[in-house]
């Protein structure tokens, strides 16, 4: 202790002469920092109401509530987050995980109320003073994600390996890959509504994560009796609305479905699905066509105890799945796996039986309690341009069927395919394979009206076709086929710049100054398919209502004007496997309902 110690504290007086540090009034207007985690803001136009913010909130501060003016539609639940500031702790995890990036926190922080009930509001809907605040907490940059935005890459056969063989080209996920991909799912369930069959997608993906593939298979079969097939060739509308696709790549839902189906051996199916013993109710149903809708209807009807008979025109079951889709995309043994399970439920398939020829529809109707028809679209459509009646102009659908049946397919060294859809790509790639096998090289050109970015075919189909040495040259309208000495020389095309007129009608416009000539000695048309309803007699047609586009009108249970006749699949909803399956399922329920009502009405004898 010294004199210094006694006087030194008085140096505090020095501070009197320093500038005060006090913040001047009005103090409450001091803005928060640029990253401040203040009150919520939501861009409700880009929000899709996936509810991931609700899931991550540890305080259950977020409710998903319907909002006026926001409609529930595919890819948008119509709900928006409402925050309870009696719960929120402003941690910002909801912002960090927001799949669309619509949610953010502003740097506003003052909110004083007398009434505690007022602290609940829907950001972006209820007007707040900080709605236009730009600063505040946003998702951090760079490389900061709570889940992986990129897919686990699906391994394909190398183009060189696959371009001359019909071996399946997609290898499928391994266990690690599937679990990693399944891990990306945020379980919002937006996809379920978009899937025509309303499959329990988040649930079966969860089963993959839990490594409980038997449970996964049970979930699949709840709504979809053809998982092997769907897992390969489904049009995966679910992936187009996947919330992960908002900022990154959508979840590979299709491949995950395939993974579950692949990993479960077919001999265990009956045990897993608990369908060993089915009680028959003695009612008989006839099903025309063994395509997806027919098989789906047969499956669910069989589970309900009906005795089902499928009448198939061809020698094998599967319809368009077998005869329209090339083997490298959907191997036949996988089709057999799904179909044999359905057959094991007691479904009888009568092959080589054409309804309308071998047996009439009326007869079927009389012999059975109800008939389901899913005959599909098996007639090719012609372009009807000059020269399209030449014998070397083929329909893709016929060629694909012949390839499957193992028939000799007409082949030349240079082929032109007209069409930009998936079927066009299928035939292009199939023929390219055959060309490679026969001539050692592919010489095929596919052209379509639609430009590259508007082609209806899946993007990867086009890219893969190119990898396999096929030429895809879109954006051209076919004009005429050049024929010399009864041999096809090539196809004249003109640049097509618009497909639809102002009224939205199909009316392609061509630039006749920009012409091109594709050389080739064979032309394949692949611009769509039509239905063959010749099995319907005139009497029956009379009783059915048929709309302008030639489709038969059905009610929501797929019941036609004839109460015992149900129709579904491509002839009702256009070409799509999953729609077919959904139709079949719904028609099965419809048939059950119809027969139940009928039984109730008829007095017991």
């Amino acid at each position, binding site marked *: 202790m010294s004199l210094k110690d006694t006087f030194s504290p008085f140096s505090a007086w020095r501070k009197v002469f320093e500038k005060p540090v006090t913040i001047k009034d009005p103090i409450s207007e001091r803005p928060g920092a640029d990253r401040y985690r203040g009150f919520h803001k939501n861009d409700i136009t880009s929000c899709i109401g996936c509810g991931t913010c609700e899931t991550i909130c540890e305080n259950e501060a977020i409710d998903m509530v319907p909002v006026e003016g926001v409609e529930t539609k595919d890819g948008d639940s*119509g709900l928006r987050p409402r925050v309870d500031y009696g719960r929120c702790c402003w941690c910002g995890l909801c912002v960090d995980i927001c799949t669309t990036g619509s949610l953010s926190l502003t740097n506003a922080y003052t909110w004083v109320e007398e009434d505690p009930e007022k602290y*609940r509001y829907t950001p972006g809907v209820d007007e707040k003073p900080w709605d236009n605040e730009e600063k505040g907490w946003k998702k951090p940059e760079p490389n900061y994600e709570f889940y992986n935005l990129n897919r686990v890459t699906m391994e394909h056969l190398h183009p060189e390996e696959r371009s001359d063989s019909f071996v399946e080209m997609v290898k499928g996920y391994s266990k690690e890959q599937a679990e990693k991909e399944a891990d990306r799912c945020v379980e919002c*369930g937006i996809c379920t509504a978009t899937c025509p069959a*309303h499959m329990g997608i988040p649930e079966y993906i969860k089963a993959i994560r839990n490594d409980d593939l038997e449970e996964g298979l049970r979930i699949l079969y709840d709504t979809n009796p053809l998982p092997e097939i769907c897992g390969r060739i489904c049009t995966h509308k679910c992936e187009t609305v996947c919330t992960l696709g908002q900022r990154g790549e959508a979840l590979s839902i299709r491949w995950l479905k395939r993974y579950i189906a692949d990993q479960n051996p077919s001999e265990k199916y009956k045990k897993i699905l608990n369908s060993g013993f089915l009680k028959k109710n003695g009612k008989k149903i006839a099903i025309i066509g063994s395509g997806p809708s027919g098989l789906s209807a047969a499956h669910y009807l069989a589970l309900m105890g009906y005795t089902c008979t499928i009448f198939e025109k061809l020698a094998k079951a599967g319809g368009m799945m077998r005869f329209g889709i090339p083997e490298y995309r959907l191997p036949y043994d996988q089709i057999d796996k799904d179909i044999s399970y359905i057959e094991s439920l007691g479904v009888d398939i009568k092959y080589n039986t054409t309804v309308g020829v071998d047996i009439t529809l009326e007869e079927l109707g009389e012999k059975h309690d109800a008939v389901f028809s899913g005959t599909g679209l098996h007639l090719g459509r012609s372009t009807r341009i000059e020269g399209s009646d030449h014998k070397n102009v083929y329909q893709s659908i016929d060629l694909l069927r012949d390839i499957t049946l193992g028939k000799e397919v007409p082949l030349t060294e240079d082929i032109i395919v007209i069409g930009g859809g998936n079927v066009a790509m299928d035939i292009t790639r199939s023929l390219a394979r055959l060309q490679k096998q026969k001539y050692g090289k592919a010489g095929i050109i596919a052209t379509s009206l639609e430009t590259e970015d508007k082609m209806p075919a899946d993007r990867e189909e086009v890219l893969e076709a190119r990898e396999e040495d096929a030429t895809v040259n879109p954006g051209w309208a076919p004009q005429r086929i050049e024929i010399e000495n009864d041999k096809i020389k090539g196809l004249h095309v003109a640049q097509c710049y618009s497909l639809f007129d102002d009224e939205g009608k199909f009316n392609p416009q061509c630039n006749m100054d920009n012409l091109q000539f594709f050389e080739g000695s064979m032309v394949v048309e692949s611009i769509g398919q039509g239905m063959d309803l010749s099995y319907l007699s005139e009497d029956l047609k009379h009783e059915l209502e048929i709309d302008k586009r030639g489709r038969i009108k059905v009610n929501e249970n797929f019941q036609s004007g004839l109460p015992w006749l149900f129709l579904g699949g491509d002839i009702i909803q256009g070409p799509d496997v999953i729609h077919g399956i959904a139709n079949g399922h719904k028609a099965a329920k419809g048939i059950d309902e119809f027969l139940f009502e009928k039984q109730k009405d008829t007095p017991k004898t």
Partner: protein
Amino acid sequence: MKEIIDHLKKRFPVYEIGEGPNGVILMSVEAAKLVPMLTSLKTNHGYGILVILSAVDWLEDCKFQLTYIINNPDEKRDLGIRVFIKREDAEMESIHSLWEHAATFQREIKEMFGINFPGSPRVDEPFLLEGWDNLPPMRRDFDTKQYSEDTYFPRPGRETNDPAEYMKQKLYPDE
């Protein structure tokens, strides 16, 4: 480190010896041998600091796990010793004579898990709770959310919708 483990193996029935991800050696021992083992480690091997005494409820196995982590400040090493005791009338020997502040841990565990430590100072006095008349809260069969909702009831006026369910109602209610 190996010598100590070997030494312990010889003298005490230790099992499940393994190294945690942070370099902590963890091992299990029978409850009856714990206090002799800790005494030996403290007096002979320099493990003079009780870092943590923690309990874990393994409800599905009907067991409580007590973890004693002790530290050797000279060698800068941690040793974790696990003891499993049965869940019914759980009781464990007190170690407050080895480390005085173990009494605080034991008092808390008594209150939170209901594991008794006979002889530990003030072990029966409430530590964190006041007027508690339910299950010891840290037991896994005590549902804190349920208790909170029943006792402190949340503010009404909240309702939420599951997106998938809501879309079903709106878009395809009959399917």
